[in-house]
Protein backbone atom coordinates (compact mmCIF):
# COMPACT_ATOMS: atom_id res chain seq x y z
CA UNK A 1 0.00 0.00 0.00
CA UNK A 2 1.37 3.45 -0.91
CA UNK A 3 1.03 5.94 1.91
CA UNK A 4 0.16 9.59 1.78
CA UNK A 5 3.48 11.47 1.54
CA UNK A 6 2.33 13.55 4.50
CA UNK A 7 2.05 10.42 6.66
CA UNK A 8 4.85 8.57 8.37
CA UNK A 9 6.05 5.29 6.96
CA UNK A 10 6.43 2.33 9.33
CA UNK A 11 10.20 2.74 9.15
CA UNK A 12 10.00 6.40 10.16
CA UNK A 13 7.72 5.49 13.04
CA UNK A 14 10.26 2.97 14.32
CA UNK A 15 12.97 5.63 14.14
CA UNK A 16 10.86 8.11 16.12
CA UNK A 17 9.41 5.80 18.74
CA UNK A 18 11.89 6.73 21.49
CA UNK A 19 11.25 10.44 21.09
CA UNK A 20 7.52 9.76 21.06
CA UNK A 21 7.66 7.79 24.29
CA UNK A 22 9.82 10.46 25.90
CA UNK A 23 7.32 13.13 24.82
CA UNK A 24 9.92 15.09 22.92
CA UNK A 25 8.41 14.95 19.44
CA UNK A 26 7.26 18.35 18.11
CA UNK A 27 3.43 18.60 17.95
CA UNK A 28 3.26 18.22 14.17
CA UNK A 29 5.42 15.10 14.21
CA UNK A 30 3.44 13.71 17.11
CA UNK A 31 0.24 14.13 15.11
CA UNK A 32 1.74 12.38 12.10
CA UNK A 33 3.00 9.61 14.38
CA UNK A 34 -0.42 9.03 15.91
CA UNK A 35 -2.26 9.30 12.60
CA UNK A 36 -0.10 6.46 11.30
CA UNK A 37 -1.04 4.36 14.32
CA UNK A 38 -4.73 4.82 13.50
CA UNK A 39 -4.50 2.61 10.45
CA UNK A 40 -1.44 0.45 11.15
CA UNK A 41 -2.02 -2.39 13.59
CA UNK A 42 1.57 -3.74 13.32
CA UNK A 43 2.92 -0.35 14.43
CA UNK A 44 0.38 -0.22 17.28
CA UNK A 45 1.64 -3.62 18.39
CA UNK A 46 5.22 -2.39 18.12
CA UNK A 47 4.45 0.66 20.26
CA UNK A 48 2.76 -1.54 22.87
CA UNK A 49 5.84 -3.76 22.98
CA UNK A 50 8.19 -0.78 23.32
CA UNK A 51 6.07 0.66 26.14
CA UNK A 52 6.05 -2.66 27.94
CA UNK A 53 9.78 -3.13 27.46
CA UNK A 54 10.47 0.38 28.81
CA UNK A 55 8.23 -0.30 31.79
CA UNK A 56 9.90 -3.60 32.59
CA UNK A 57 13.41 -2.31 32.00
CA UNK A 58 12.70 0.59 34.34
CA UNK A 59 12.06 -1.90 37.14
CA UNK A 60 15.35 -3.71 36.67
CA UNK A 61 17.99 -2.56 39.18
CA UNK A 62 21.66 -3.06 38.32
CA UNK A 63 22.03 -5.52 41.19
CA UNK A 64 19.43 -7.80 39.58
CA UNK A 65 21.67 -8.49 36.61
CA UNK A 66 23.77 -11.65 37.18
CA UNK A 67 27.52 -10.98 37.12
CA UNK A 68 28.09 -13.23 34.10
CA UNK A 69 25.34 -11.48 32.11
CA UNK A 70 26.72 -8.08 33.11
CA UNK A 71 30.22 -9.04 31.98
CA UNK A 72 28.87 -10.44 28.68
CA UNK A 73 26.97 -7.22 28.02
CA UNK A 74 29.97 -5.02 28.81
CA UNK A 75 32.09 -7.19 26.55
CA UNK A 76 29.54 -6.89 23.73
CA UNK A 77 29.40 -3.10 24.12
CA UNK A 78 33.20 -2.85 24.06
CA UNK A 79 33.30 -4.92 20.85
CA UNK A 80 30.52 -2.89 19.32
CA UNK A 81 32.34 0.36 20.05
CA UNK A 82 35.57 -1.02 18.58
CA UNK A 83 33.75 -2.32 15.47
CA UNK A 84 32.05 1.02 14.83
CA UNK A 85 35.23 3.02 15.05
CA UNK A 86 35.12 3.89 18.74
CA UNK A 87 33.94 7.47 18.35
CA UNK A 88 33.62 9.71 21.37
Amino acid at each position, binding site marked *: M*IVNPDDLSCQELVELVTEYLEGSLPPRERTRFEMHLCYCEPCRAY*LRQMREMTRLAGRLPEEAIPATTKEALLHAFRDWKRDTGGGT
Partner: protein
Amino acid sequence: MIAYKFLGSGAIAPFTGFRWPVPASGEAGPWVEARSSFPQRGIHACREVDLAYWLDAELWRAELTDPVIEDRRQVVSSRGRLLSRVAGWGPEMSARFAEQAALMARDRVAAALDRAGLAPLARVLEGCADLLDLGAAARTTLQSPAPVASLAEYLAEAAESALAGDHAVSAYISARVAVPSAGGDETEFAAERERQARWLAEQLGLCG
Protein backbone atom coordinates in the same frame (compact mmCIF):
# COMPACT_ATOMS: atom_id res chain seq x y z
CA MET B 1 -14.85 24.66 22.12
CA ILE B 2 -16.90 21.56 21.43
CA ALA B 3 -14.86 18.91 19.64
CA TYR B 4 -14.81 15.13 19.22
CA LYS B 5 -12.62 12.44 20.65
CA PHE B 6 -12.24 8.87 19.49
CA LEU B 7 -11.30 6.52 22.31
CA GLY B 8 -10.74 2.80 22.65
CA SER B 9 -13.27 0.56 24.41
CA GLY B 10 -13.78 1.67 28.00
CA ALA B 11 -12.97 5.32 27.16
CA ILE B 12 -9.26 4.58 27.02
CA ALA B 13 -7.07 6.97 25.06
CA PRO B 14 -5.56 4.93 22.22
CA PHE B 15 -2.06 6.36 22.41
CA THR B 16 -1.44 7.10 26.07
CA GLY B 17 -3.62 4.44 27.66
CA PHE B 18 -5.25 7.11 29.85
CA ARG B 19 -8.70 6.11 31.05
CA TRP B 20 -10.99 9.10 30.62
CA PRO B 21 -13.51 9.80 33.38
CA VAL B 22 -16.89 9.43 31.73
CA PRO B 23 -20.03 11.48 32.34
CA ALA B 24 -22.52 10.09 34.79
CA SER B 25 -26.29 10.46 34.65
CA GLY B 26 -26.47 12.99 31.86
CA GLU B 27 -23.94 15.41 33.30
CA ALA B 28 -20.59 16.33 31.80
CA GLY B 29 -17.59 14.34 32.92
CA PRO B 30 -14.97 15.83 35.24
CA TRP B 31 -12.31 18.12 33.82
CA VAL B 32 -8.97 16.60 32.93
CA GLU B 33 -5.88 18.81 33.00
CA ALA B 34 -2.89 18.26 30.73
CA ARG B 35 -0.04 16.97 32.83
CA SER B 36 2.57 19.51 31.79
CA SER B 37 4.20 21.59 29.11
CA PHE B 38 1.12 22.48 27.09
CA PRO B 39 0.94 22.60 24.08
CA GLN B 40 3.55 19.86 23.57
CA ARG B 41 1.48 17.65 25.85
CA GLY B 42 -2.15 18.58 25.94
CA ILE B 43 -5.69 17.31 25.69
CA HIS B 44 -6.21 16.29 22.07
CA ALA B 45 -9.47 16.10 20.19
CA CYS B 46 -10.62 16.64 16.63
CA ARG B 47 -13.06 18.72 14.61
CA GLU B 48 -15.78 17.22 12.45
CA VAL B 49 -13.58 17.65 9.42
CA ASP B 50 -10.84 15.51 11.04
CA LEU B 51 -13.08 12.61 12.06
CA ALA B 52 -12.01 10.21 9.31
CA TYR B 53 -8.39 10.21 10.48
CA TRP B 54 -8.90 9.07 14.06
CA LEU B 55 -11.42 6.20 14.07
CA ASP B 56 -11.59 4.05 17.17
CA ALA B 57 -14.14 2.06 19.13
CA GLU B 58 -15.91 4.95 20.90
CA LEU B 59 -16.69 8.49 19.81
CA TRP B 60 -17.29 11.20 22.41
CA ARG B 61 -18.29 14.84 22.35
CA ALA B 62 -15.70 16.76 24.31
CA GLU B 63 -15.36 20.27 25.63
CA LEU B 64 -11.99 22.02 25.54
CA THR B 65 -11.22 25.24 27.36
CA ASP B 66 -9.58 28.22 25.68
CA PRO B 67 -7.01 28.71 24.41
CA VAL B 68 -7.45 25.92 21.90
CA ILE B 69 -4.72 25.39 19.35
CA GLU B 70 -6.12 24.33 15.99
CA ASP B 71 -3.58 22.10 14.25
CA ARG B 72 -3.89 20.49 10.84
CA ARG B 73 -5.71 17.35 11.91
CA GLN B 74 -6.59 17.96 15.54
CA VAL B 75 -7.13 20.53 18.26
CA VAL B 76 -5.21 20.81 21.52
CA SER B 77 -6.03 22.41 24.83
CA SER B 78 -4.66 22.33 28.36
CA ARG B 79 -8.00 21.16 29.77
CA GLY B 80 -10.89 19.08 28.55
CA ARG B 81 -13.77 16.86 29.55
CA LEU B 82 -16.10 14.34 27.97
CA LEU B 83 -19.66 15.55 27.49
CA SER B 84 -21.50 12.59 26.03
CA ARG B 85 -20.90 9.52 23.95
CA VAL B 86 -22.04 9.66 20.31
CA ALA B 87 -24.53 6.83 20.40
CA GLY B 88 -24.66 6.28 16.65
CA TRP B 89 -20.99 5.33 16.41
CA GLY B 90 -20.22 1.65 16.83
CA PRO B 91 -19.24 -1.45 14.86
CA GLU B 92 -22.21 -1.21 12.50
CA MET B 93 -21.64 2.45 11.61
CA SER B 94 -17.92 1.79 11.32
CA ALA B 95 -18.62 -0.94 8.76
CA ARG B 96 -21.02 1.30 6.84
CA PHE B 97 -18.43 4.06 6.85
CA ALA B 98 -15.80 1.78 5.30
CA GLU B 99 -18.29 0.46 2.77
CA GLN B 100 -19.40 3.88 1.52
CA ALA B 101 -15.75 4.92 1.22
CA ALA B 102 -14.98 1.80 -0.83
CA LEU B 103 -18.00 2.44 -3.06
CA MET B 104 -16.77 5.98 -3.69
CA ALA B 105 -13.39 4.49 -4.62
CA ARG B 106 -15.21 2.08 -6.93
CA ASP B 107 -16.79 5.01 -8.78
CA ARG B 108 -13.43 6.74 -9.11
CA VAL B 109 -11.80 3.61 -10.51
CA ALA B 110 -14.72 3.04 -12.90
CA ALA B 111 -14.29 6.59 -14.22
CA ALA B 112 -10.57 5.92 -14.72
CA LEU B 113 -11.41 2.72 -16.61
CA ASP B 114 -13.75 4.68 -18.87
CA ARG B 115 -11.01 7.20 -19.59
CA ALA B 116 -8.64 4.31 -20.41
CA GLY B 117 -11.13 2.93 -22.94
CA LEU B 118 -12.10 0.01 -20.72
CA ALA B 119 -15.80 0.73 -20.45
CA PRO B 120 -16.93 -2.91 -20.11
CA LEU B 121 -14.73 -3.34 -17.01
CA ALA B 122 -16.02 -0.06 -15.65
CA ARG B 123 -19.60 -1.30 -15.95
CA VAL B 124 -18.67 -4.52 -14.14
CA LEU B 125 -17.29 -2.53 -11.21
CA GLU B 126 -20.28 -0.21 -11.14
CA GLY B 127 -22.52 -3.24 -10.97
CA CYS B 128 -20.94 -4.34 -7.69
CA ALA B 129 -23.22 -3.30 -4.86
CA ASP B 130 -21.44 -5.06 -2.02
CA LEU B 131 -17.88 -5.44 -0.86
CA LEU B 132 -17.60 -9.13 -1.64
CA ASP B 133 -18.49 -8.59 -5.30
CA LEU B 134 -16.37 -5.48 -5.44
CA GLY B 135 -13.26 -7.23 -4.12
CA ALA B 136 -13.68 -10.09 -6.58
CA ALA B 137 -14.33 -7.77 -9.55
CA ALA B 138 -11.35 -5.60 -8.62
CA ARG B 139 -9.11 -8.67 -8.50
CA THR B 140 -10.29 -9.59 -12.02
CA THR B 141 -9.48 -6.07 -13.20
CA LEU B 142 -5.86 -6.56 -12.10
CA GLN B 143 -5.22 -8.04 -15.54
CA SER B 144 -5.66 -4.57 -17.06
CA PRO B 145 -2.81 -2.27 -18.22
CA ALA B 146 -0.50 -1.03 -15.47
CA PRO B 147 -2.08 2.26 -14.28
CA VAL B 148 -5.54 0.72 -14.14
CA ALA B 149 -4.24 -2.47 -12.52
CA SER B 150 -2.71 -0.40 -9.75
CA LEU B 151 -6.04 1.33 -9.08
CA ALA B 152 -7.80 -2.02 -9.10
CA GLU B 153 -5.34 -3.32 -6.53
CA TYR B 154 -6.14 -0.42 -4.22
CA LEU B 155 -9.82 -1.14 -4.68
CA ALA B 156 -9.41 -4.84 -3.94
CA GLU B 157 -7.44 -4.01 -0.78
CA ALA B 158 -10.06 -1.49 0.33
CA ALA B 159 -12.87 -4.02 -0.11
CA GLU B 160 -10.97 -6.86 1.53
CA SER B 161 -9.85 -4.74 4.49
CA ALA B 162 -13.42 -3.63 5.09
CA LEU B 163 -14.64 -7.22 4.97
CA ALA B 164 -11.92 -8.18 7.45
CA GLY B 165 -13.16 -5.51 9.86
CA ASP B 166 -10.17 -3.20 9.35
CA HIS B 167 -12.41 -0.23 8.68
CA ALA B 168 -9.85 2.49 9.35
CA VAL B 169 -7.38 0.81 7.00
CA SER B 170 -10.06 0.37 4.37
CA ALA B 171 -11.15 4.01 4.48
CA TYR B 172 -7.53 5.11 4.28
CA ILE B 173 -6.93 3.01 1.16
CA SER B 174 -10.16 4.24 -0.40
CA ALA B 175 -8.97 7.81 0.14
CA ARG B 176 -5.65 6.97 -1.46
CA VAL B 177 -7.53 5.86 -4.61
CA ALA B 178 -8.50 9.50 -5.11
CA VAL B 179 -4.90 10.49 -5.86
CA PRO B 180 -4.00 8.27 -8.84
CA SER B 181 -7.58 8.58 -10.09
CA ALA B 182 -6.98 12.32 -10.36
CA GLY B 183 -3.66 11.94 -12.16
CA GLY B 184 -1.52 12.08 -9.03
CA ASP B 185 -2.94 15.20 -7.41
CA GLU B 186 -2.10 14.70 -3.70
CA THR B 187 -4.65 17.28 -2.55
CA GLU B 188 -7.34 14.79 -3.55
CA PHE B 189 -6.42 12.60 -0.59
CA ALA B 190 -7.28 15.29 1.96
CA ALA B 191 -10.37 16.22 -0.05
CA GLU B 192 -11.61 12.64 0.08
CA ARG B 193 -10.87 12.43 3.82
CA GLU B 194 -12.98 15.57 4.28
CA ARG B 195 -15.78 14.02 2.25
CA GLN B 196 -15.60 10.89 4.41
CA ALA B 197 -15.73 13.04 7.54
CA ARG B 198 -18.77 14.95 6.23
CA TRP B 199 -20.54 11.66 5.51
CA LEU B 200 -19.82 10.49 9.02
CA ALA B 201 -20.91 13.75 10.62
CA GLU B 202 -24.17 13.67 8.67
CA GLN B 203 -24.89 10.05 9.55
CA LEU B 204 -24.18 10.68 13.22
CA GLY B 205 -26.16 13.90 13.31
CA LEU B 206 -23.15 15.97 14.34
CA CYS B 207 -23.67 18.71 11.78
CA GLY B 208 -24.80 22.10 12.92
